[in-house]
């Protein structure tokens, strides 16, 4: 895929109690953010297992965004802190594998932060756009991709 035509595909895991609601709010407020994100609602970012981030990248996502509550504001007290540690662990593994760790990012927002969420998503999309397509896709499509 040529760099100039490249539209990143970002998977965003959004916590039901904050980021998902703030994405809703961004919509109500008519705030634009790039359509490159595919949002998956999760009960809490603490519910996300490390292998989800791995599998997303393995199956061709150009970036993975984890959007949880502000630190100290988790509905389940510390789920977002678990998620933060897991994201950091997988970022280290991505470096070992040879994939840019910037493709995986965690952000913290509250349900009232529609505009900051949109800005964060825009920033993530631009970061990944600069990095280019997921190198896994360039070196032969993954199983899921080749079935299409």
């Amino acid at each position, binding site marked *: 895929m040529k760099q100039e035509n490249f539209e990143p595909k970002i998977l965003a895991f959004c916590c039901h109690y904050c980021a998902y609601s703030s994405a809703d709010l961004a919509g109500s407020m008519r705030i634009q953010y790039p359509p490159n994100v595919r949002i998956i609602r999760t009960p809490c970012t603490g519910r996300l297992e490390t292998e989800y981030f791995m599998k997303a*990248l393995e199956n061709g996502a150009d970036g993975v965004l984890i959007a949880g509550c502000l630190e100290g504001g988790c509905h389940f007290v510390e789920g977002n802190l678990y998620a933060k540690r897991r994201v950091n662990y997988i970022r280290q593994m991505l470096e070992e594998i*040879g994939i840019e760790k910037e493709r995986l990012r965690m952000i913290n927002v509250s349900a009232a932060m529609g505009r900051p969420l949109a800005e964060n998503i825009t920033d993530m999309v631009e970061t990944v756009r600069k990095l280019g397509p997921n190198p896994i896709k360039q070196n032969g499509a*993954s199983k899921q991709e080749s079935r299409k």
Partner: protein
Amino acid sequence: MIVAQRKNIPDLLAIVKSHKKLLVLGCGTCVTVCLAGGVREVSIIASSLRMAAKLKGLPLEVEELTIERQCDNVFLEQAADAIKRNDAVLSLGCGAGVQALAERYADKPVYAGLDTTFIGILEERGVWTEKCAACGACVLHEYGGICPVTRCAKHMLNGPCSGSREDRCEVNPERQCAWQLIYKRLKDIGQLDRLKKIKPPKNWNKSQSGGYRSIIREDHRV
């Protein structure tokens, strides 16, 4: 429990790169508990290897499987079909599991994906520490349940080395002096008199002397 840690991905890829079909085989016992070789770790390492291989242009297919226990022939049978399907096995079991697999499946290369490190316990979340050196002649009853063979950096059996500072070990100031702990514990349980007896040199014949050790129970043999 046996505590192990994963090897890094470049090292693992170097070990398995000559194969085209690889089985990453986890173990559901000790290494699951120490978060090194259970279902989740198998999934992460298999994904990592697939991605790393793809980036290097290596044609590597990776299958994932975790069985209850790799060091037991009964459970090893459950992996037979998967092992047959693949060219090699990367075991995420401890050293015993890797060798049990290699003995059972003589025609398949079996590689260790973990560095088996020690017998220990979960000290706190995410922290494991060594508690037993499997020396073959336990002396814990003499020392209030605190093992000087494992936990004293110098394996001192007749009192501290005099190098400790406060309650810290002089070899590694981040560690507690085992002898400080032994003294406190014996004092707490009223057994300080145990320290007055001079301990003879330890019998290391029961440890790593003369090759591997085995235990034979005639009453259980068939």
